[in-house]
């Protein structure tokens, strides 16, 4: 289904996940260290990276930041602790989603598919909101005519919000719509993605124009 780069230092965990994910139809390349992983990433340009946070040498946070600075390839973190330090650190490094070890392969597969989905065009083609131009068919975005590179998650978030300008979406609704998480999803994923999206499309991310916060409820697109 997808070309996945798995960066995990424990050989048995690496092999186990490789076996399980292959069975879900993915093509897996595996790396044992952060350095190898980054080299593999440059060489193979995978569709998605599954990244263990606890790596010897260059750690998972650093690897994630480097991948994110290179392009918009989605990253799913594997955390052994599932505590705030890992989750917050990983999301700040630019990860799109996270799973806690031990993870069921079906769950990981569902997350992979959700993160890779860029969203569906609604057939209306192009919608223009001020300086922001969203092509819902080609799934491209320009700001003042300049193309903006978005990760699939950011793209889906923007599409979801901009499809109904002015409507307030709760974090829970966005988690279900964008990340396809169940009712216990981590709302920090939404907040983090909103921040990254604002950094890319807002002139002043501190006073956002397009993706606005509705305190106590969630987010809405506009009104401009």
């Amino acid at each position: 289904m997808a070309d996945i780069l798995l960066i995990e230092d424990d050989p048995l965990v690496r092999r186990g996940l490789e076996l399980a994910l292959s069975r879900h139809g993915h093509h897996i390349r595996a790396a044992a260290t952060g350095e190898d992983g980054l080299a593999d990433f440059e060489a193979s340009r995978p569709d998605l990276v599954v990244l263990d946070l606890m790596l010897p040498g260059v750690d998972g946070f650093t690897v994630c930041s480097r991948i994110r600075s290179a392009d918009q390839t989605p990253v799913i973190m594997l955390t052994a602790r599932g505590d705030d330090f890992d989750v917050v650190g990983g999301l700040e490094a630019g990860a799109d989603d996270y799973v806690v070890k031990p993870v069921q392969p079906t769950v990981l597969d569902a997350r992979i598919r959700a993160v890779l989905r860029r969203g569906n065009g609604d057939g209306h083609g192009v919608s223009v909101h001020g300086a922001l131009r969203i092509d819902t068919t080609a799934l491209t975005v320009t700001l003042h005519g300049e193309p903006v590179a978005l990760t699939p998650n950011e793209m889906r978030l923007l599409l979801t919000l901009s499809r109904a300008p002015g409507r307030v979406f709760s974090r829970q609704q966005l988690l279900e719509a964008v990340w396809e998480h169940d009712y216990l999803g981590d709302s920090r994923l939404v907040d983090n993605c909103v921040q990254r999206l604002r950094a890319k499309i807002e002139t002043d991310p501190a006073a956002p124009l397009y993706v606005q916060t509705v305190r106590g409820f969630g987010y809405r697109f506009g009104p401009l």
Partner: protein
Amino acid sequence: MSRRPLPRGLRARLIVAFALVTMLGAGAASWASAESASDALVDSSQRRLTEDFAERIGAIAPTLTYPPDQETLDRLRAAVGPNTTVTYEDLRSSEGPHADLITDELLDAVGDGDRIATQRITDDGPWLLIGAPVMITAPDGTRTPSGIEVYAVRDLAEVHRQIAALASSAIGTAGAALPLSVLVALIAARSVLRPVRELRDTARRLADGDLDARTPPLGADELAQLAVTVNEMAESVQGSMAAMGRMQADARRFAADVSHELRTPLTTLTAVAEVLEDASGGMEADAAESARLAITEIHRLVRLVEDLMEVSRFDAGTVHPRLEEVDLAEAVRDSLRARGWLDRVETTGPETIRLRADRRRLDVIIANLVGNALRHGAPPVRIDLSASETHVRIEVTDHGPGLSDQALPHVFDRFYKADNARTRTPGSGLGLAIALENARLHGGDLTAGNADGGGAAFILRLPIGSEEP
């Protein structure tokens, strides 16, 4: 319980004791000196009056004619002074308002003897009565009573005034010593009580858990030794506490480390279990059953390790709730739906209850309570939701046999199994303990009991929490 002494503090007792001792000492000394001084005063004044009396008689006696007539007696009386009576047989010369104070006792004493007699009386004030027979001295030196008797009454009020002044000055001296003694007592009490108070403060801080509290020992007296002993005791308690704390921390870290180390192999096992499960369809029957057993146990192990890690986090105090606005009825429905329990559990209560809670932890509590009721109780399992001004109340009841009296106090204990015959349950044995910790993390509470119908009843109370600003 010992009876409380009347003066409460040591300070008050010391001051009272000092004042009492001072007053007793000063009073006794003043009293003794005043007593002896007044004796001396009375004696000397009596002697002076008596001598004066005798001198006056002696001066005039040689000029008297004998036997005396009334005129002679009058002269003698005038010479002796006022308040004097002179008698000779039936003749009598008396002058002065107090002259008649002379007692029969004195009359007898003078009549029988040949010397001056005195008596002190206190009729209407202190008086000295003096009486003497006038003697005739023959040329050969023999003395015979002349039959003339002289009596005089002398006022002792002045002497008594002096004695009263002496006594009042003695009382004044003792009184003046009182404030001085209180002052000295205060200083003494301070020097004794300050170290005592410091020791008390130190002991109180130690009791409050401040094991760094010490009292600097001053000097080398018994109180200083006590301070040294208290310091040593604190030192040793502190040492033991630190050792215990280290052991406890080690034990907790060990539990956390073990759980964490188990995660890595469990990750591999969980990953391959699915592959195995998919492939078990093509295996021989015994191999397929073995694979299914292995998979079941892997899932149990995962659950156990996750619960252990959760308990470790609570023990380490590293758990922080992520509060958000939660619709209670919806949250309960979500928890039930996710586990396929919707048609096995009957939920009643208003749809409108909202609270601020950690959604995931609320789910853990509900899942543990309902899971417990479904496993150990009998259907129907019921959830009743209600809310007051400040709290929400979630009651989970079943219709099983309920909790026995022995089990009731232990249901929230870790790894407690109410029914020993059924030790193999899908639960980790930590579920209710974790549910309780989660309830407390929200500032709420979780209690176990039995419903009227006989089944077990778990009641969860959570604060509604403040609105998001």
